[in-house]
């Protein structure tokens, strides 16, 4: 990976009249001018196809709990987590419903929370409103035309935002801006940088002028399309005009440690043949994407990350742990020697074994991410780590994966101690809160996941407690007490013992 040096540019720009106000604005935004205040960040950490709930959720509640095999890799971090059982997604209760509802609540055609948070942060924007990173998510998207499994991140149901599966493209986009930086702080270097800035601005201004002229000729339906294009170009322009909006700390100016195994992505005819979509590449891609997520948060490039391990139809196995695809395996677990189904008993066992191995592997990746976040200082607040100021919400589109049900989703809040999360406990909401129940949910009373999304929205500062939660839909804003399902009875998300 090409070594990128940002320090020179940043120093150079800091000396110029153009950059000074931008730097100042950025620092004020981060609270550097006043006493350090935690800037909340969030990571939606998705792992696919649900779990075997009894092997994920602890049986105990409260502060002392033992994690079963599938979540055991998180036991060392039990005091940093809130394990939550008894949560479902409503009203739909399968892959399709889960993918529609995971970040949208039950209003499937709403701008999803990750995008909405990014839009909210527009007033004090990090360079990337939100960042969607995938580990083989594109080849894993299931569903059909008749029963689509929409992407988790969306502006609307008809406008899905796809995660970037290619970690090298993601890295150069987040940190490289696609243009070699001019290094040094001599007068010539500053002049060269100024010229480069002028060029970048002109290029994007002209593209924007083309977009505006075109938009005026289009019918409304097509205008929307041009609007998201224009908005993206504008965001790009903001980023390019303000390279100072990257933290000046050493880890952000010298990124040479990225990609230590020199993973490469040679050009292929069909992206499905790319190294980053192959089984053999999965573990490395996972490492790289988590590193990008961590660095992007640490370096002020974004405050909202959606990290996807696969999607609803995760085709690939995980190397060394099984030979069946993750999704395939997830629907074939059953007690060993059960002579059943389309598979021979031996194959049945192979899938069950594989799926449990895969699930442990996913949990190990969460643990790896926790470790990395804990060891990364948060440049915004001296003496704290990124982990202290970041809400990590682990989720899946299903709960009980074998029968395709959203019941008992493996929700875990992780980190964010400085944001008021009551970490180090296990809560079981089954039959414990006035919440959804129904035939499709085994007749038990499970809590909708909407209060969790609502808590994230509140803690990110998007809404003040008590204010209506406003969501964007294609037909206009909707509002209510939750991000999503309103529930049969009143329920205060902030009084669930989570925060």
């Amino acid at each position, binding site marked *: 990976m090409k070594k990128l040096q940002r320090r020179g540019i940043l120093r150079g720009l800091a000396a110029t009249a153009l950059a000074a106000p931008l730097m100042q604005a950025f620092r004020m935004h981060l609270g550097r001018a006043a006493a350090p205040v935690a800037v909340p960040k969030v990571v939606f950490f998705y792992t696919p196809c649900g779990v075997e709930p009894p092997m994920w959720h602890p049986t105990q509640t409260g502060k002392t709990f033992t994690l079963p095999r599938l979540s055991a890799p998180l036991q060392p971090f039990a005091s940093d987590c809130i394990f939550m059982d008894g949560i479902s997604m409503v009203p739909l*209760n399968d892959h399709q419903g889960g993918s529609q509802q995971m970040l949208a609540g039950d209003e499937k055609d709403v701008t999803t929370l990750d995008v909405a948070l990014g839009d909210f942060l527009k007033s004090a924007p990090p360079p990337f409103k939100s960042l969607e990173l995938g580990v083989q998510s594109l080849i894993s998207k299931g569903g059909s035309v008749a029963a689509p499994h929409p992407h988790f991140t969306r502006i609307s149901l008809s406008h899905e935002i796809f995660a970037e599966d290619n970690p090298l493209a993601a890295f150069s986009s987040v940190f490289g801006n696609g243009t070699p930086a001019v290094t040094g702080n001599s007068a010539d270097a500053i002049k060269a940088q100024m010229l480069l800035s002028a060029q970048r601005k002109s290029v994007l201004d002209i593209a924007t002028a083309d977009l505006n002229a075109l938009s005026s000729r289009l019918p409304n339906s097509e205008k929307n399309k041009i609007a998201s294009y224009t908005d993206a170009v504008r965001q790009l322009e903001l980023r390019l005009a303000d390279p100072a909006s990257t933290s000046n700390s050493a880890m952000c100016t010298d990124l040479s440690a990225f990609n230590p195994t020199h993973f490469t992505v040679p*050009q292929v005819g069909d992206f499905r043949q790319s190294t980053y979509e192959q089984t053999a590449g999965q573990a490395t891609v996972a490492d790289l994407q988590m590193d990008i997520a961590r660095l992007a948060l640490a370096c002020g490039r974004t405050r909202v990350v959606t990290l996807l391990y696969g999607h609803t139809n995760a085709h690939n196995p995980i190397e060394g742990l099984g030979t069946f695809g993750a999704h395939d395996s997830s629907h074939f677990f059953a007690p060993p020697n059960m002579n059943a189904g389309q598979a021979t008993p031996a194959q049945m066992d192979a899938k069950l074994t594989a799926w449990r191995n895969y699930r442990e592997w996913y949990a190990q990746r969460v643990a790896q991410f926790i470790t990395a976040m804990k060891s990364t200082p948060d440049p915004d607040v001296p003496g704290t780590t990124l982990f202290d100021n970041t809400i990590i919400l682990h989720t899946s589109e299903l709960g009980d994966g074998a029968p395709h049900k959203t019941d008992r989703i493996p929700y875990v809040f992780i980190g964010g101690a400085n944001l008021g999360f009551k970490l180090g406990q296990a809560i079981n909401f089954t039959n414990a809160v006035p919440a959804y129940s129904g035939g499709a949910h085994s007749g038990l009373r499970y809590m909708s996941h909407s209060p969790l999304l609502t808590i994230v929205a509140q803690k990110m500062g998007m809404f003040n407690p008590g204010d209506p939660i406003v969501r964007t839909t294609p037909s206009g804003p909707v509002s209510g007490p939750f991000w999503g399902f309103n529930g049969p009875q009143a329920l205060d998300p902030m009084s669930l013992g989570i925060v």
Partner: protein
Amino acid sequence: MRQLTVTEYRSTASDLLYLSSPNTTDIPPGNPVRGYTTNAASAFIDMSNVDKYQSVGNALADRAVKESYAKLVTCQTQDTACATTFVQQFGQRAFRRPVAADEQTRYLGLFDPAVSGGDFKTGVSLVIQTMLISPHFLMRSELGSDVGNGKFVLTPFEIASGLSYAYWGTMPDDALFASAQSGALSNKTEIEAQARRLLADPRGRAGIATFAGEWLEASRAYVATKDPATFPALKDADTAAGIVAAMRGEEDAFFTGVAFDSTKKWNELFSADYTYVNDTLASYYGLPLPGSGESFTKVPLGAGSPRGGLLTLGSFLFGHARADQSSPTQRGHMIRANMFCADVPPPPPGVDVTIKPGTAGSTGREQIQALTGSGTCAGCHNLMNPIGFGLEGFDGAAQWRTMDHGEMIDASGAINDLTPTPITFNGSKELSNVIASSKDAQACLAANFYRYVRGFDPVQTGSPDEANAVQKLEQAFVTNNLDLPELFVQVALQDSFTARRSVETLNR
């Protein structure tokens, strides 16, 4: 507006900038709908990809200035006149229409010394960079000219692009531009002449292969994980990837071979007694090695071979199967949906698909029948499984077999609910014959090609104009003795190829 697909982007960048193998790896793939990357409504340039278009475009511009400067800039003077000529000439090729006066002024601003640093070549590079992220390059216009009553007619330049992307998947060539410039392309005779010329070009073969691959969902083979315990030949990942790549090659070669080199008729797609293999695939299929290395050679399959025709192509059988066995459901669904244009409803929300203990039967067929052949599942599965049963002679990795779990293969099947009485058949050959002689299937190919070319599902628009156009295309296919190249040409001769209605645009 139609956004270029990733494949179209790559080909267009290559032609526009005179670059071989432009590196477009960082452009994220689009969002295909029913396999079609050309689907206009699901394609966006947004926060998820705009900076990749920019960085890839910048790198291409750098390369073009280094490698293709003399072709791109035909004047030598490095002054305003030369800059103007460049913006006009290059802009017309990038935007696929003449550059408007206000656009020319805007783009000439990039030669301003305050922006270019006084370096002419930098100005050239900046113009290329900018045009490569302009909507006029990344999207092609189908806005047309207003002819009143909510009707619009595509301009000759828009028609030129319509033709070049339909058949070549890239920008118009000089001859098409000249035809557009002269206005000749407003005329159906000229459209037909150009369509025939484009199809006859090697790029026409490649374009048709792209269509066929998307129609047949060939890319599924790339992501079809196979269990090495069941299929030891695929244990090594690189070997497996080589075999899948060869299956894709087989499909491209077979479809284009029929359409361009052989009888060019629909029936041969199903009745062929040959296929195309390279050494890798011949070895996998157990055929004599053609000794052609990686290139594909037409080889006879011999009398009595179970293979032959679209249904037994490796990529289809391999991609529509499970990790450890065939999938009559997936195969039947694909044939029903893509070859008969008959949709199957989705499984009901919340359906419990847990494999229950004690499922009867030993063969895959018996088990799937026991699981889905009765009760609530049967209503839909009987529309799919009995079609797929006809291909039970081919296992999940596209290999011929006569036994499954110790029992003889039963490849008898039926197509239910398309005709007053079910159509029964036994095995892939008979199923192929059924499809080949089906008027519904013939019409379905026409509808699919229309959909691919136009970038939307004509049925979904609810537009009578579109329904009418598809029907006329289907009739023309039959009238022309099911000639494939003729079908490909006829799509451009429908009124709907050049006419637009405002309401249709809104419904797109």
